[in-house]
């Protein structure tokens, strides 16, 4: 079902962004706690990185169809 794809994508995207954000946040917290003397910047940095990666991934996933290097069949004429 082509209509479900978007949903799936969004699911993945959300999941991915949650993971990435969480991981980034966690790592940031870890790094902030561990290495950067409980500054906030590694947390934000890490969450930012995580969010950014998640955004990029999500965007990439969403526009994956329109990118030619993919071997997916281009249904859009």
């Amino acid at each position, binding site marked *: 079902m082509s*209509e479900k*794809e978007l949903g799936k994508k969004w699911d993945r995207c959300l999941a991915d962004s949650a993971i990435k954000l969480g991981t980034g946040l966690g790592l940031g917290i870890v790094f902030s706690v561990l290495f950067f003397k409980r500054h906030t910047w590694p947390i934000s940095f890490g969450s930012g990185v995580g969010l950014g990666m998640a955004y990029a991934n999500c965007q990439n996933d969403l526009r994956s169809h329109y990118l030619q290097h993919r071997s997916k069949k281009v249904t*859009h004429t």
Partner: protein
Amino acid sequence: MLRACLRGANATARNNFGKTRLTNLQHCRHYTAGETSGGGAAKVVAAGLVTVGGGIGGTILYAKWDNKFRAAVENNVPYSDWLLGLALGPPSPKSGLPIKKQELAQPPSMMDKQTNVSKAKSEKKVKEAAESPASEMSPVPIQPAQSIEEASAEATHIISAISEVTSVPAPCDTEGAAVKEEYKDCHEHQDTSVTAAVHPDTESPTATEPLKERPVEEVAAILAQQDQEEQDIATSVSASLEESLTSSAKATLQAIGAQEAALQAITRHTLKLKEAMEAEVPPQEKSAQWKDLEAALADRTGAVNDAETALSKANEALDSLKSVIDKSKGLKVSAVRPLVLAAEENLHNMVVDLDKVVTKVHSAESEAKIVSQYSELVNEAKQQFQREVSSLTPEIQANWKGLTGKLSSDDLNALIAHAHRRIDQLNRELAEQRVREQIHIDAALEQQKLEDQKALEKAVSTALQHIKEEARLEQERKLSELREVMEAEMRTQLRRQAAAHTDHVRDVLKVQEQELRVDAEQVLSSKMLEQETRYRQLSQEQLDNFTLDMNTAYARLKGMEEAIDSHVVAEEEARKAHQLWLSVEALNYTLKTANADIPTVPLEGAAQAVRDSCHDSDFALALSSALPEESLHRGVYSEASLRARFNSLRSLARRVALIDESHNSLYQYFLSYLQAALLFEEKQEAPPAQLCSEDLDPFKLLSYASYCLEHGDLELAAKLVNQLRGEARRVVEDWLTEARLTLETRQVVSLLSAYANAVGLGTTQAP
């Protein structure tokens, strides 16, 4: 530029002259230049007007002079005909003249003839005027001819004026010829006025002959009539001639008889006289003789009178005969000629005889006269002697001769002396007579000569007349003989001609007969052929009809067999169709087995059933093979499920409306979502008949599609959804595929069912 020049000029003027006057002049010049410029323009305009007017005037004048130019101008320049008509009046018919000239030139022969005729007329008039006193009647017949000729000339004039055809004036020619003939006749008239009387009779025939030709029957009738008349005339003439001939013959015979009798009487009388004078007979016989003589003389006179009367009668008769002959000659009838000739000959003979007899009588009379003269002389001498004797011897009587015995010697002596004296006297007379003999002989000869001459002349004249008459008669006879010969010859020639004609006619008839026979045979053969062909045709027709009937019967039989077979076939077909229909219905039913979100059962079985039931129908086979694979294996979704699915799809499509190849970042997604949240459109909107560019907006499309779906038009909804682009399209792709499948399958099935219905209807047999 002018002003610049002027300014320059002004400046230079100021520089050069520094006078205001010049500037004024310049100004004036300027003004004048302006004026001249204005004047120049007026001059130009005036010149142009003059040129145009001159051109038009010249054109009009030339058109007046030359009509061809006028026609050319009228043809080429639009309203010039109106202008030229106004200026010059309507175009003159100069083009009519050449035609008329042709007309007049066309019958030149007629004109020449007419001039000739008129010349002849004038000649005639001149000659007539010159010689009018000579022939008075010739103008009379010419006048009507001339009037006729004039009338004919006028008629020919009229004819030539009316028509352009050369009319040969035949009557004019013949009239002219006839008139010329008459004219020649008139010349002859004037030369010989003797035959003038005859010509008017011939003129009219010659004038009328060219005009009229009597028909053959009339000619034959006239000829017969003429023959009849001739015959009648001939008979009458012959009768009259015979009558007169007989009467004249009788009279002539009578005359001749009378003359002969007279002649005889005269000769008798002369004989008697001679006898009486010479013969010495006794006195009694002498007196008897003298009595006889007297009787003879009386006879003679009577006979002569009778002869004369008879002669006169005969002459009368002969004259009448002659007149009759002349009259009959005057009739100019050929059949009469031989009769006339014979009558003339008879007349001539009679006249000759009569003349001969008359001459005989005359000669006898002359002889008798001589004899009587002699006898008178003798008588005189005798009487004188007697007187002498009586004077001497008075007692002696007349018949002294018988008295010789009675005389005395004295008497005898006296007598002898007297005798001697008488002898002397007589001798003396004789001598005298001998002397006067010659004179007397001469006189007598002269007299005789005269008489002889007269007689000769008379005889010569009569002989001449007779000879003339004979010659004429001979000539006439010869003429008649010649005529007969000629007639005979002509008859032979005519006979020959007739024979030739008959031969020719026979030949022609033979040829004609052959031709006619050939024609008749041809006709006969053609008719026979026709009849045969007709017979054959009829027989053929009969045959054809029979074969036709047989054929029709056979055909009907065949038809019936075929009908039965076709019935069987049709029933088979019907069964098959029924089967097909059933299978198609089954297929149709399978389509309905779709529930919500569950596709139908695979259509494979039903399709197979359909395929089984339509072995022979390519169409159905093709259709059944056109069913899409998916439907066969998996089944199709129902419309309701598709509708429901669409409803869920719609919101999704709305949400991704802005996403396409170029706009597909997350921000775009956010915007798209925002748009979907903020934009409100109709849930369902009726799609227009034609989509325009505004309708290609996804929201609109979706509302159109919803409307269509709600109204059951899956096809249109699919079409509209097909117009989505970008991500929305990707989202609805599956739905579209499913919808396509369903539509395809439904189309095929509907076609199949239609086909099955059609076949079923086709195979139904009407009751």
